């Protein structure tokens, strides 16, 4: 009988403790939710002002400004474009060696422009040729074909990209 009474008392105590914990935890949580859901309230929070022997607002602003300026100048120095390596710069200046594939491809385009149509077979041919020429030649071939297509000198019948 006594043990049953004790068990009931322990259970009651646990319940009361849990209730008390819940009771005191809830207001804080509710406040947090209220602040999240009402951003206007955050604007109403007074700004933190440091007084009584601490750094003054002007000092803080000045210090932060100096730090930001220093960080920005360091970052600018770190991200400044470095000069291209000599080999790369030289390669960009020097004309690329002509390729064997260029002349036939150029002739092909000229011939097709004269004929007036550009078919899927032409597309497949040029698609392969563009991978075999250098970048200057590639741009020249593309230029010649696209100008002809845009000015209606050649009808593109590829159902998509012409190369």
């Amino acid at each position, binding site marked *: 009988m006594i043990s049953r009474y004790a068990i009931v008392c322990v259970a009651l105590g646990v319940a009361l403790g849990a209730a008390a914990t819940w009771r005191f935890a809830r207001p804080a949580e509710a406040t947090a939710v209220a602040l999240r859901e009402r951003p206007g309230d955050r604007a109403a929070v007074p700004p933190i002002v440091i007084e009584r022997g601490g750094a003054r607002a002007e000092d803080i602003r000045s210090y932060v400004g100096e730090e930001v300026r220093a960080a920005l100048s360091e970052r600018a120095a770190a991200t400044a474009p470095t000069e291209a390596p000599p080999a790369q710069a030289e390669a960009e200046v020097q004309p690329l060696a002509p390729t064997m594939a260029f002349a036939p491809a150029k002739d092909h385009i000229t011939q097709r422009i004269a004929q007036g149509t550009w078919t899927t077979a032409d597309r497949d041919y040029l698609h392969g040729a*563009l*991978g075999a020429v250098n*970048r200057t030649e*590639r741009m020249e071939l*593309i*230029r010649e074909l*696209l*100008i002809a*297509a*845009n*000015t*209606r000198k050649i*009808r*593109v019948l590829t*159902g*998509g*990209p*012409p*190369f």
Partner: protein
Amino acid sequence: MRNTLFKATLVGAVLAISGVTYAGLNSINPVEIFTESSTGTLAAHGSMRDARNSPDSSSYIGCWESAFSGSPTMALCVALDAQGNFFACQSTEPQQVEVAASLNSASFASFVVAQDGVTCARVEALQYSADL
């Protein structure tokens, strides 16, 4: 009697509700190739959806990206309208290539060629609910 009346009312209500359809704005943008009045250069635009669903069997619009060894990635943007007019421009500008690569099935695409007749002066990709 009451049961029949209830069923009739229910059927009527269902029919009334199903008859109302809300779909939002729907723009029709087939492929168009034209000369831009401000620059005098060739331009093309259209939505992917309306190009694909065009009643003709030839319209298309889109961009391809190619990466050749030793060269910057190139975007080739092309379009063909219902009348068979063709448009193309190419770009190696990273920002334009990026925009070209962002085109998807819900996009409205717009291209303008530069004065040289080859390079893209502008590449646009609009993702817009009315073009879905």
